[in-house]
């Protein structure tokens, strides 16, 4: 196991390095630059700005400077937000996104998995059909729609919940629900089909034959095996939710990493783009590694090599 983790870590480092390199060159090759949007910049002022951020040097030299900076833990200064380092900005924005995303993940796991399991146990009955219809409809709603419908009902009509910002606990409800909607129903579908798969297996019949109670059979044999595909989905999901959904953050006016990232791309804040991309890439890679390890713990048949 430690050998496997080491091997994966090295592979991940290579992937992260390639992602960083690719992003750096793609970003710089795209026409335009960070100072184009600012009006009435004299050529001298622009040259001075470029010199300050090292943008006047040859591209390859910029690349090596940036890469050696990263190795020392220095992600550079943001161009658009004067005087703040990229690490500081990510450090303040990420916790906001992570809190909303983490709550959404907990909500999705705690409702999606039981819903799917319940549907599978009542296969063909009314409750199963209802859940299948609900979950198929649930994954057909784009997030910007579900969140506007939520706002329409709970803010405009009922006036129960605030629609903007994250001031108090109440204001978390709508963004978290909107964010959790898709993964909840997706997981319910996934759980249902894998549960049905497991319940048809021979070992379930064996368990019944040797007199294991239904309760024990479900929790000890069925759930543990059925949850594997859901765990696979959990890795990318965790990364996607924690790093912030641009749409949800824009609609609910949440100062998270997702909306920060999009605005840094449109304004060509090069150090900010690089920093966030590397951060996201490393986060996704670590989450996938966690999932693989969790997989081996849940399913002893899997040997990590």
């Amino acid at each position, binding site marked *: 196991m430690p050998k496997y983790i080491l091997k994966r870590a090295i592979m991940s480092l*290579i*992937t*992260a390095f*390639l*992602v960083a390199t*690719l*992003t750096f060159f*793609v*970003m710089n*090759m*795209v*026409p*335009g630059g960070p100072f184009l949007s600012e009006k009435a910049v004299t050529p001298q002022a622009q040259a001075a700005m470029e010199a300050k951020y090292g943008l006047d040097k040859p591209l390859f030299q910029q690349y090596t400077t940036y890469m050696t900076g990263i190795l020392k833990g220095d992600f550079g200064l943001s161009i658009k937000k004067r005087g703040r380092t990229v690490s500081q900005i990510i450090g303040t924005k990420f916790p906001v996104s992570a809190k909303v995303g983490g709550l959404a993940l907990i909500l999705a796991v705690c409702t999606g998995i039981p819903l799917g399991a319940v549907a599978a146990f009542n296969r063909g009955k009314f409750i199963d059909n209802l859940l299948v219809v609900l979950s*198929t*409809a649930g*994954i*057909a*709603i*784009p997030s*910007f*729609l579900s969140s*506007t419908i939520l706002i*329409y009902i709970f803010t*405009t009509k009922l006036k129960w919940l605030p629609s903007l910002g994250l001031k108090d606990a109440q204001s978390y409800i709508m963004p978290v629900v909107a964010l959790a909607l898709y993964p909840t129903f997706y997981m319910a579908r996934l759980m249902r089909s894998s549960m049905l798969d497991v319940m*048809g297996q021979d070992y379930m019949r064996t368990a019944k034959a040797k007199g294991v109670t239904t309760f024990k059979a479900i929790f000890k044999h069925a759930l543990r095996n059925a949850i594997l595909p859901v765990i696979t989905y959990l890795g990318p999901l965790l990364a996607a939710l924690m790093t912030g959904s*641009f*749409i949800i953050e824009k*609609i609910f006016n949440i100062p998270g990493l997702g909306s920060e*990232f*999009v605005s840094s*791309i*449109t304004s060509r804040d090069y150090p900010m*783009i690089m920093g*966030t*991309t590397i951060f*996201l*890439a490393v986060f*996704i*890679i670590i989450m996938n590694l966690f999932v693989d390890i969790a997989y081996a713990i849940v399913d002893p048949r899997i040997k990590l090599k």
Partner: protein
Amino acid sequence: MEEIKNNPLSLQWSLEDFTPASVEDKESLVFMRESVSFWKDGLHRFRKNKIAMSALFIVFLITICCFLIPGVYPYKYEQQMKGSERLAPMQYSKTEQKQIDAGEKVFPHLLGTDQNGRDYMIRVLVGGRVSMTVGLVASVLILVIGSIFGAIAGYFGGLVDMIMMRIVDIIYTVPDVLIIILLAQTLKFPLEALASKPGFAWMQKLGSNMISMFIVFALLYWVGMARIVRSQIMVLKQSEYVTAAKALGAGSGRIIFKHLIVNCIGTLIVTTTLQIPSSIFTESFLSFLGLGVQAPMPSLGSLASAALNGFQTYPEKLFAPAFLIFIIILSFNLLGDGLRDAFDPKLKQQ
């Protein structure tokens, strides 16, 4: 003779038992069904699935509505009517009211008009057409690129597989928003320059955003398909017919295209059908970012995101395109599920 036959210990046999069977006798012994091909079997199971059949019917209906009705509709999607801005559904503007009073027939604005005086019903229908086109074209692009990439990686294995799958990993890890925004900005000017040249007039009609959207799909979203196809090919390449083809001297290209990809056609159909709704999803997301199709051409995503600003006063402007997106995605999802139940060999036994 009679005596002999009645004696159970006699070794004499009746010669009648050895006469060749007549055709009728032979036929009465045949209990075999007609052989059922893969397609017939799948179609039979698909037809029995009521939900999938109604989903297919709805997809068919929406396709007809979105592709044929705009041709005969009395209004055009880009036609701006002065004086009839922001009409409620079924409401007439003052000039139209005068025409009606004078005895003329005026086609009602079924869903009202938008802030530029354009009939909203036709915009929603054309938007549905654009979204469906984007979904279909993007899915075909993803199908072609993903299946070829996945098949090559899966068939050759080893170092080739490792390098190709690292490329997939990298594309998977680079945030897609980054590539989409950068690509849209990069491609804008070259595409517009290309569109103004003779022979590329069709590009102007589509708009540079739509083309760069297809390029985005072709560059980024095939990785899921590649992974699925790769895992299928890795199992299939162990089959005897591949060994047989190799023994007969078939080249790798022939084996991949003539034997392997053809044999995972079921998976390909299902994955592509399920890819269509997710492409429509992505298109509506891109439109929300302002990177979707170019005005005045509508798409369901751009209509919905434009309606977001005023949805408290004009909720129907949001709910009409939203409902159509919902119905399209839902029926494609149900159709895909039905196709999977019908054609996935793993689900056959259950």
